[in-house]
């Protein structure tokens, strides 16, 4: 068997890959599924968790900010002390 070149691989790939039509029965079934009540039920069922989470999002962010307040206070106090100490040294010189 002779060794094939790069161009042959490309040609082979092009002949192998081509658009494929699904089975007509499957196409019809999916069409019915999308049109029918099943899709509407699915819309309601899947929209509930998203609504639940989006309703809670504000509460989660608010809680996180509120929890961080004491730490922010401590940090502000420490920075203030540090700056005051630096100012005192400068006046002493």
């Amino acid at each position: 068997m002779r060794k094939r070149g790069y161009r042959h691989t490309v040609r082979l790939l092009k002949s192998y890959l081509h658009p494929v039509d699904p089975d007509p029965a499957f196409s019809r079934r999916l069409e019915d599924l999308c049109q029918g009540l099943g899709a509407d039920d699915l819309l309601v069922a899947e929209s509930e968790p998203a609504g639940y989470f989006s309703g809670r999002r504000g509460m989660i962010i608010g809680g996180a900010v509120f929890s961080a307040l004491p730490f922010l206070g401590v940090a502000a106090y420490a920075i203030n002390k540090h700056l005051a100490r630096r100012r005192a040294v400068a006046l002493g010189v």
Partner: protein
Amino acid sequence: MEKGGDGGRELCHEDGALVQQAREKREAFEALYTKYLRKVYTYVYYRVGNAEDAEDITESVFLHALVHLDRYQDRGVPFSAWLLRIAHNLVANWHRSASRKRPVSLEAAEGLHDQGLSPEEAVERAEEIRRLREALASLPEERQQVLILRYAEGMRHREIGQVMGKSAGAVKVLVHRSLVSLHRRLSEKEEEKR
């Protein structure tokens, strides 16, 4: 099959109108479904290698799109690219599942019978295609994806870039590297056979 350039932009606008209609009236989704079923199915089919799983995943793609239609925003990314992204994610989940260790099916070669081939040539061609399929399946996911979109879907580099989140130039390079890699693996398989 859609092409890029101005035609692609027109299609994008046209899809935007169809999506808007489908948002207001779910029955209008049928137009989008009819338009892109073949495209999505072709992509999924070559990624999973058999019609049964391809049908299941394609069904999931369209139901997912229908449910999450409100999330699609027409910001220059065509609806078809959005659908193919969903398809890509679902196929990736399918491959990740530990139970999906089926060998690649022979179905894909069925439409490949060239006219005018002698029985010996037909056998040789079938064997060649089998090796090609194995070599393709052994490539990294991204390389399989780009080759299928390029050659099975006939998409342009820019269009593929919209699906994969890459520039047209990056896609061009990726296509070339994928072809080189495929050729190397195919040559290795031929060497093994000798």
